[in-house]
């Protein structure tokens, strides 16, 4: 039987060991009650923004599509509960800048009536992968580990890049967060079924389920479910706890020794990675016929009285989550969306939960002060370079970004940075390295966009010039043809006169 506990064969360089703060690791998932109003931003994934399908006053059911996907890299948005659409306007989203996005406001009617239009596909084993893929898209599935990449795009069979192994990412290396941990402990059977569906969809012969060693309950639950499911060539692999083990590229290297080449995707090395939360959502979408309307959120932090793992409907205001767990006065805390290493710090809590919300943390000012004190000059100690899992040289990169030397930064592989935060974590000078990288990447993206625009303008201008020139040439050609046809014939008398006058005085022949 292949369901053994495997050990990691390779170790990615660098990484750090932050305090884990898994305050909610043993706490079972609790249901969070419906809110009075749910706010659904039009973009909860990487890709194109959706456009609303409903109007103010419409009644919607739970799981009903309320915004349609635009373009290829996009997935629809669904109503989290039944109710009436009261507003469609801009509202703040979980971004550190405090920016807003068009959002649909749904007032709950308390009935929580479910839209049953999607039929469960119980015989998925004999269903065409393309049908299952469309189901994943229709249900709005995106990567629930935090990256929210539209799931259906990954779950494809491409003959040029056959998939050998599916990796289920149950690592959850961020401090505080335990939603994947609890999902695996409580819904192991569903996740295993979801894994089987994925294997069927991509045609992969084998799979690995990667879990960090700080989750013994999850490991044993997944092991038992795996044995019960009797799947071929699937293993649970336990990896030592280290940040950022859960980063896709680092995980692939740890498990298989393969590196995803720069600019390429895991499928180019024959691997598909999927978060366990997304896998469970896929199970719900295929086997139960449910669209993505809720997710598990770890509400925690060193300044929160009652940390918990909550099952939350999308669109729930974060303020409600914190209040439910005992924190009403937010003036003395900092709110972080996600984990402390890569999460976004929000300036206020009136922001809705979205598909990427794996955690809402209330951190004390003392906690934050350690990471955000006065920046001192770089002493070139090299600890950042030692900690970088991608083997970059962060201090040189940050210097280049800060002094606007973007070509040099690109040459030093700025765009390979995964923004994990290991470098800033170890910096003795408290330099906000990741901040400089984000600035650099933003400026370079802006420059590239401007260049592309300028290039397109130049091309338009050149084709216009070419067209005008072409028209001019055509006109000239026409004119000369006309002239030729109507040109006066050289008279015999003229010729005689020219011959008499002598060669020297003869007029040059008319050239037509």
């Amino acid at each position: 039987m292949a369901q053994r506990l495997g050990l990691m064969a390779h170790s990615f360089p660098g990484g750090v060991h932050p305090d884990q703060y898994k305050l909610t690791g043993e706490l079972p998932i609790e249901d969070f009650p419906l809110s009075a109003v749910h706010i659904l931003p039009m973009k909860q994934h990487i890709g194109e923004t959706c456009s609303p399908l409903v109007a103010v006053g419409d009644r919607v059911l739970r799981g009903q599509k309320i915004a349609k996907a635009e373009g290829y890299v996009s997935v629809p948005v669904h109503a989290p509960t039944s109710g009436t659409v009261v507003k469609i306007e801009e509202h703040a989203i979980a971004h550190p800048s405090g920016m807003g996005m068009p959002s649909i406001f749904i007032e709950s009617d308390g009935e929580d009536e479910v839209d049953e239009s999607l039929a469960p596909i119980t015989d998925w084993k004999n269903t065409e992968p393309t049908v299952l893929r469309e189901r994943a898209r229709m249900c709005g599935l995106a990567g629930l580990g935090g990256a929210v990449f539209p799931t259906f795009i990954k779950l494809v069979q491409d003959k040029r890049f056959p998939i050998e192994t599916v990796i289920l990412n149950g690592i959850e290396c961020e401090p505080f967060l335990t939603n994947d941990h609890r999902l695996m402990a409580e819904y192991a059977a569903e996740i295993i079924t979801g894994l089987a569906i994925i294997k069927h969809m991509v045609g992969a012969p084998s799979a690995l389920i990667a879990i960090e060693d700080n989750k013994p309950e999850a490991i044993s639950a997944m092991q038992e479910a795996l044995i019960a499911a009797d799947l071929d060539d699937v293993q649970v692999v336990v990896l030592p706890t280290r940040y950022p083990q859960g980063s896709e590229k680092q995980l692939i290297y740890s498990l298989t020794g393969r590196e995803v080449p720069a600019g390429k995707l895991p499928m180019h090395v024959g691997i598909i990675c999927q978060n366990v939360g997304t896998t469970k959502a896929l199970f719900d979408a295929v086997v139960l016929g449910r669209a993505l309307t809720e997710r598990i959120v770890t509400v925690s932090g060193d300044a929160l009285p009652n940390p918990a793992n909550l099952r939350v409907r999308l669109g729930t205001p974060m303020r409600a989550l914190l209040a439910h767990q005992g924190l009403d006065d937010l003036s003395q805390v900092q709110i972080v969306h996600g984990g402390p290493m890569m999460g976004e710090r929000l300036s206020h809590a009136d922001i809705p939960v979205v598909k990427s919300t794996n955690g809402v943390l209330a951190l004390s000012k003392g906690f934050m002060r350690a990471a955000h004190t006065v920046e001192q000059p770089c002493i070139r100690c090299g600890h950042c370079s030692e900690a970088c899992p991608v083997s970059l040289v962060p201090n040189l990169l940050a210097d280049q970004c800060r002094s606007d030397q973007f070509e040099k930064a690109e040459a030093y592989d700025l765009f390979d940075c995964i923004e994990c935060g290991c470098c800033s974590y170890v910096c003795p000078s408290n330099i906000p390295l990741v901040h400089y990288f984000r600035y650099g990447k933003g400026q370079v993206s802006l420059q590239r966009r401007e260049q592309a625009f300028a290039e397109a303008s130049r091309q338009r201008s050149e084709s216009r010039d070419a067209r005008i020139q072409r028209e001019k040439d055509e006109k000239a050609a026409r004119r000369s043809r006309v002239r030729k046809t109507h040109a006066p014939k050289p008279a015999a008398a003229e010729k005689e006169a020219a011959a008499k006058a002598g060669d020297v005085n003869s007029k040059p022949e008319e050239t037509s």
Partner: protein
Amino acid sequence: MPMIMLSSPHAHGGDSIRMQMFTVMVALLPATLFSVYLFGWLSLFLIVTCMAVSLITEAVCLKLMQRPLSTLLDNSAALTGLFLALTLPAATPWWMAVLGSVFAIVLGKQVYGGLGYNIFNPALSARVILLISFPLNMTTWIVPMSAMQPLLDLYNFSDCLSLFFMGPDALKLGFDAISMASPLGHVKTEATLGVSVAEALKAYDYSYLNAFLGFEAGSIGETSALALMIGGIFLLARHTITWHIPFSFIGTMALLAAIFNAIAPDQFAPPMFHLFAGGLMLCAFFMATDPVSSPVTPVGQIVFGIGCGVLTWSIRSFGGYPEGAMFAVLLMNCAVPLIDHYFRPRVYGHGRDKS
């Protein structure tokens, strides 16, 4: 908190410049204590003077540059002062110690923009300036208290005070009476007279054990290889430095010395002699590993260490000066930006065989 937009990460490992510098000072404690044992009050005077003047000079510079004086708390000026003191001969007069400290802080660090911007190791640049400006004083080694009945009692406070402020004339002693040659100096002078290394060491009554423990003439902090190695291992254990520079520096020295000693033992000293002599241990573990002036990348650090080793050995064996470690480190400091550029680690996803 004044920040408007805080970028992740929001957690920090707790390291600070202060902690790093303080760890190095703790690592220097064995060598410092031993220097006081060997050279008594003179050591103390030098250490106190250099550290105090360094701090004062830095305070003045910070004021002139309109920077907060709290920068002094990062311990870097104090550390530079301590380093400089440990590289000085015991009989250094007070004004040379003051001058050296001012040079170290101003010309070694602040003119470049302060901590983190200097190209050269500040303490070593000051030491070299002093050596070239005052060659006699900088190569005069007082007989340490471990030797048999030295003429000068270095545990006598008033004698040392007079010597420190007014020179040996105040004690009615000439420099020759109270000083001796260092092992390196002795071997170099004898070599010019055609004496082989082995004979020179015999005439010097050289003992490897004494050299390792530190009972020999030299700068106040550099004599004891043992004390410095203890400090170096402490730094490695605390992860303040990595093994790359010290091991490649010392390894290259040992290798070169071994090869050439095997080829021509009369001309070239054996490896153990080189490892325990002069400022090698101090430079390899403490000076060359100064984070600001050394490479950031691991392979770069090895290249740096090898370069230092080659240069030190070459200067010692072929050059005019008996001691080459400080010149070697400063010369390699020049090459650090280039080394950093060309010896960057291979980035994930680049450079492996394309599949």
